[in-house]
């Protein structure tokens, strides 16, 4: 009796462990009273050093000496911090990341979520328009896996057959999205 209890306990722990997300906890969880980008832009001084968690689509990446500057088009985030696919946006922000980030990995259009503190505002030209960016000093960041393009017949019945080996469908048999992790 105790034996079965023991085993089931072990099993459920294993199962739970396999669910654990790769997304850093500071990305998954928003800071308390996470301010909106709009409010911070309008009144950056009073939000100085406040914790924020924002995310969206990468617009530009500049590699500096020992640092990387990302400009991001913010989008609303889901509860676990992932940018939602919508056009509604509160605008752009800049994230200062204290290490080198590979521009071939963090490419334009990829989705990123950043956690950090408000460092101020910076005006940069977008075309000829003087755009006011909120600058965030990032402490955590996460590049979301790219949406995987499945082959057109991915959802056909033979893909679900776990018992028969289908050499003619080639390798890789399953497609795993790649997770890029940082610290």
């Amino acid at each position: 009796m105790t034996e079965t209890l023991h085993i089931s306990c072990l099993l459920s722990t294993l199962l739970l462990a396999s669910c654990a997300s790769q997304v850093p906890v500071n990305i998954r969880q928003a800071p308390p009273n996470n301010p909106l980008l709009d409010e911070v832009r309008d009144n950056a001084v009073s939000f100085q050093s406040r914790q924020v968690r924002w995310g969206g689509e990468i617009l530009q990446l500049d590699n500096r000496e020992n640092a990387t500057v990302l400009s991001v088009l913010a989008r609303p985030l889901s509860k676990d911090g992932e940018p939602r696919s919508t056009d509604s946006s509160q605008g752009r922000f800049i994230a200062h990341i204290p290490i080198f980030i590979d521009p071939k990995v963090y490419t334009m259009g990829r989705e990123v979520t950043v956690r950090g503190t408000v460092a101020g505002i910076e005006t940069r030209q977008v075309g000829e328009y003087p755009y006011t960016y909120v600058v965030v000093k990032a402490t955590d960041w996460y590049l979301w896996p790219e949406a995987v393009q499945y082959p057109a017949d991915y959802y056909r019945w033979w893909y679900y057959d776990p018992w028969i080996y289908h050499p003619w469908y080639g390798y890789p048999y399953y497609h795993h999205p790649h997770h890029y992790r940082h610290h």
Partner: protein
Amino acid sequence: MTLSRFFLLSIVLLLLGACASGPSFDTRRVDLAVTPRSAVAEQPLTSGQTVLWGGVILNTRNLESHTVLEVLAYPLNSNQMPQRGRDPLGRFILERQGFLEPASYAEGRMVTVVGTLERSESGTVGGSDYVYPVIEANELYLWPRDSEQYNRSNVHFGIGVGIGL
């Protein structure tokens, strides 16, 4: 009787709601016969007309106080969505006060606009001269990226086989 009628009505409304998405701009003041090409056919152009145009964005320029889009126009369907499969109606230039995000109003995205015909402007396309009608956008709608897929096939029918055990 009234209850079943109510149900029928609500189902019909739900179905209609599922199909008709889009800006639903008020077209009472719009001169629907004017196309970008016909607007510049006679010079000087008749400014002040209200038009309903839509098409695919060719480029976006952010200026100090306004944004300029160059659009290739297509005929609109009943949802006021540009129909890319049909013959284009010429190019036009759209001006909007303030800042439009160029990453959203990007090349290839579709817009529908109610605007006021302002003037014509000459430019070049490759080596050719081109005369653009310029409109001031009063109401502007950016179509979601995948709206063409939703609007192309409105209704699907399927046949299913079930086994009861």
